[in-house]
């Protein structure tokens, strides 16, 4: 089997657009990712320290909004699907492999430290921005939301503005 053969990006884009359109047609909402992680964080805190979760506003509000349980949310089911879908695609293309992917100019350790730092920033930013690249930027743009388009411009604009400083990690 030929490895590393990716889909034509324009075909991939049309297919992703159809998935997003289905979400809007079926459920009246767009795709997302960070919202599911929020549910998992809230659920974990509620399990470990229920008194704290019942007091602190961030957790309390989320628990209140989901009377049937924090994990019974649309995005949690959707992200579980993402894990399965990505695994199937990777398996079919022969890309299932444990590895740390990084530029030959940096070490695996450096890559992992930056991955952790980037994850922390993205996690924090997705809560402040009410959604990530999927929920706010992509889904927001499809429904022409002003806020979604502003967030998209801020994400990509900042990426380009900072690209020079982190070039060693990538090129």
């Amino acid at each position, binding site marked *: 089997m030929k490895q*590393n053969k990716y889909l034509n990006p324009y075909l*991939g*884009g*049309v*297919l*992703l*657009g159809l*998935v*997003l359109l289905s979400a*809007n*047609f*079926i*459920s*009246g*909402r767009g*795709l*997302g*990712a*960070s919202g599911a992680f929020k549910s998992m*964080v809230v659920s974990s805190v509620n399990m470990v320290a229920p008194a704290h979760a019942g007091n602190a506003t*961030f957790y309390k509000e989320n628990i209140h909004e989901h009377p049937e349980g924090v994990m019974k949310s649309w995005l949690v*089911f*959707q*992200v579980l*699907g993402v*894990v*399965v*879908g*990505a695994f199937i*695609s*990777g398996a079919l*293309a022969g890309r299932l492999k444990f590895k*740390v*992917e*990084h530029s030959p100019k940096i070490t695996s350790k450096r890559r992992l430290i*930056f991955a952790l*730092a980037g*994850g922390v*920033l*993205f*996690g924090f*930013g997705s809560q*402040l*921005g009410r959604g*990530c690249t999927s929920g*706010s930027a992509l889904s*927001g*743009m499809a*429904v022409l*939301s002003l*806020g979604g388009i*502003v967030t998209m411009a*801020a*994400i990509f*604009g*900042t*990426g380009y503005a900072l*690209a020079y400083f*982190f070039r060693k990690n*990538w090129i």
Partner: protein
Amino acid sequence: MGPLSVNEIISSNTNFFLAFLIGIGFGFVLESSGFSSSRKLAGVFYGYDTVVLKVFFTAAITAMLGLLFFSLFGWVDLSLVYVNPTFWHSAISGGVIMGAGFIIGGFCPGTSVCGAAIGKIDALVFVGGLFLGIFIFGEGYPLWEDFYKAGFAGFPKLNEVLGISQGILALLIVLMALAMFWVGEWAEQKFPREEY
């Protein structure tokens, strides 16, 4: 007719099941397009691989045009489709922090799930970072709650702000996307690349 769940054509549990299927499609397309590779994703910021730009904007215009046509045919009631709210302060600052996270970490939340699903350790560590970042936001929430809720402008659509119809805005976005695809193809010719 649509949205099916809002109009109670399908039950809440069916909706959750379909969310799972939609997620499978989402993950499959992202991974097939190469979004499980951080070096491929980061390429958009250096011009050596603009797959992010092509997939992202093709998807956005496909869904946008689809919704407009569905609405025209009476298949979906756009007033029942969720439109993200606009909070100026947090939309901009959240986006800036996410942009920094993107260039530093090489993933966004959805793509990191795809990377982790096929065994990328760096993606898994990024996911760990997401949990930590959200936890920090939750723990410090009283400190930034006012800022988070500042600058609320309702649920406006860009075409309402510009005073044009949705169709005209959609046409402008399609033309803009075509121009960006042209720049992307040019950049990939100009900057050397290898397949990751």
